[in-house]
């Protein structure tokens, strides 16, 4: 690449990073506006049906709802920029601290799900495209449609029934961190990862197959085959490499679904992560926690898609900026 080529890529990267700022600003504005646009007095709703007038006044003061709107907003954004996500109504602890305590199981679950579904789905999609129209292709497509339709919690309970209740192979629920030994860690994480990864894997398998079919029809693939390259070299070295951009894109988009699924999966498997924190916050109407979690999850999603966009520069040097 020439010098100007490098600077073009550099400009693209900087521009792409700057583009995340307005997106996160909209997210922050939405999260703030929600509290004020919702019908009724938020303090009354958050306090619940059994609240006394004192409770309501206390919540109003705690959320700063007794101050003018612009002051509330400035104070809130100022806090955000300093990593202050507010104070939990129920526990009186800083939201950032509560989130930090719960982040490890969620990250562990997400990474293991990503690994399981990507390692499972991409080979399936590649083989389905290579043997398009065969029974293998049909099986993969049926898997893709079924996997997309079975809700996370239904699949989770199915797995628990098969592997924990009727056969006793795996623990019903719970979470063991990787420091607690590889065996217990794996036995606890395998079912949640499978349940959470199914929709994601179905999505990736489908996109891999579609993208591979496109690439396999190209002239350079025929050339590679004609000059006698082995099938695996053509499939992986030539085809998959060129089919990678849509696959990586769908992985980035699919992370949103993964985040939604985390909340449910953690509830079913009693994993003490951010999902459980969300559910507890819903039940207690602890709105600052819900706000903080939305911001953190959305930031994670924006970050993943930033990385996906940046990966294009490595995957396909032809993409122009």
């Amino acid at each position, binding site marked *: 690449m020439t010098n100007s080529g490098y600077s073009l890529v550099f400009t693209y990267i900087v521009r792409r990073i700057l583009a995340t700022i307005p997106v996160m600003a909209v*997210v922050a504005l939405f999260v703030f506006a*929600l509290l004020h646009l919702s019908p009724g007095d938020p303090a009354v709703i958050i306090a619940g049906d059994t609240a006394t007038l004192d409770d309501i006044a206390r919540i109003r003061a705690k959320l700063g709802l007794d101050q003018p709107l612009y002051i509330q907003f400035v104070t809130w954004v100022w806090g955000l920029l300093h990593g202050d996500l507010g104070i939990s109504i129920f526990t009186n602890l800083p939201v950032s601290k509560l989130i930090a305590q719960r982040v490890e199981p969620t990250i562990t679950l997400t990474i293991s799900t990503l690994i399981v579904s990507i390692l499972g789905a991409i080979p399936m999609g590649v083989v389905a495209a290579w043997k398009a129209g065969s029974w293998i292709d049909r099986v993969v497509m049926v898997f893709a449609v*079924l996997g997309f339709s079975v809700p996370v919690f239904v699949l989770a*309970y199915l797995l628990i029934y098969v592997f924990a209740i009727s056969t006793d192979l795996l623990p019903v629920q719970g979470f063991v961190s990787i420091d607690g030994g590889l065996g217990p860690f794996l036995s606890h994480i395998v079912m949640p990862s499978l349940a959470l990864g199914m929709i994601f894997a179905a999505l990736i398998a489908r996109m891999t197959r579609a993208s591979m079919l496109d690439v396999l029809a190209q002239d350079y693939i025929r050339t590679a085959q004609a000059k006698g390259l082995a099938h695996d070299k053509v499939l992986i070295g030539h085809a998959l490499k060129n089919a990678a951009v849509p696959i990586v894109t769908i992985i980035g988009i699919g992370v*949103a679904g993964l985040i939604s699924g985390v909340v449910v999966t953690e509830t079913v498997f009693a994993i003490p992560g951010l999902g459980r924190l969300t559910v507890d916050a819903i039940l207690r109407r602890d709105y600052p926690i819900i706000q903080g979690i939305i911001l953190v999850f959305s930031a994670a999603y924006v970050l993943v898609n930033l990385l996906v966009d940046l990966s294009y520069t490595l995957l396909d040097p032809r993409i122009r900026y």
Partner: protein
Amino acid sequence: MTVAPADFALRAAPATRRRGLRTYVRRHPTIIVGGVLLTMMALMAIFAPYLGTVDPQALSPIRRLRWPSAEHWFGTDMLGRDIYSRTIYGARVSLTVGLSVALLASALGLVIGLITGFSRWTDAIVMRIMDGLMSIPAILIAIALMALTRASLENVIIAITVADVPRVTRLVRGVVLTLRELPFVEAAHASGTGFFRILWRHILPNTLPPLLVQGTFVAASAMLVEAILSFLGAGTPPNIPSWGNIMAEGRSLFQVAYYIVLFPGAFLSITVLAINLLGDGLRDALDPRLARRM
């Protein structure tokens, strides 16, 4: 976006149209399978009172946690309520939410998409907002809205609609931007056709096929989100039986009475599968270029 085939099919002579319909249904059997399953679910929801059901809310403490039997086909829950009746009535909630959200989100997305597709300055602002909203996972938007309102079916529908509008808007805007540059729109413009007539006669009909396909997927995802919200305790109020509610009540009892979760879960999966099959079939039928690949 290729929308020409559908356009063509609509204008074809009646005899060809009928044959065309028959061949494409034969080529896309998923439309039949999905359509039949979905119709069965809809009939079941409508005729719920006549399907051997009892009052889904009727408590019967002495009949708590009975396993499925001739008397209680799907068993009873911890309050002695008949799960079969609750599951059949639960179809009403799921289908209502799916249909309402699909219609509302499509209508709102269509209007906003058409406006942003034609007006450059609203486009810049509205699409920034949509980008921001799309980076919040749909469930979290719905959870946040539900946490601030009282639990009711209407609020569930509104919450899920808000989360789905950006995706529809983006689709419609994309179609409009493509269509605007096509020769037949330019020709209409050049021959003096008014803006609203172009919109009504040329743009709108061509956005409908992709919108229909998207609508089916919105309906399927809305049903899943409703079930998840109810399952987490932030959805349909407990006095209305919904599949998510029944499963939420069976959650803590799963190890002793897994049938409570099993039946509503199976009905939910079958319904979502039916809609996805229908949507896949429609997409293949309306967009043959994509069909060969997906």
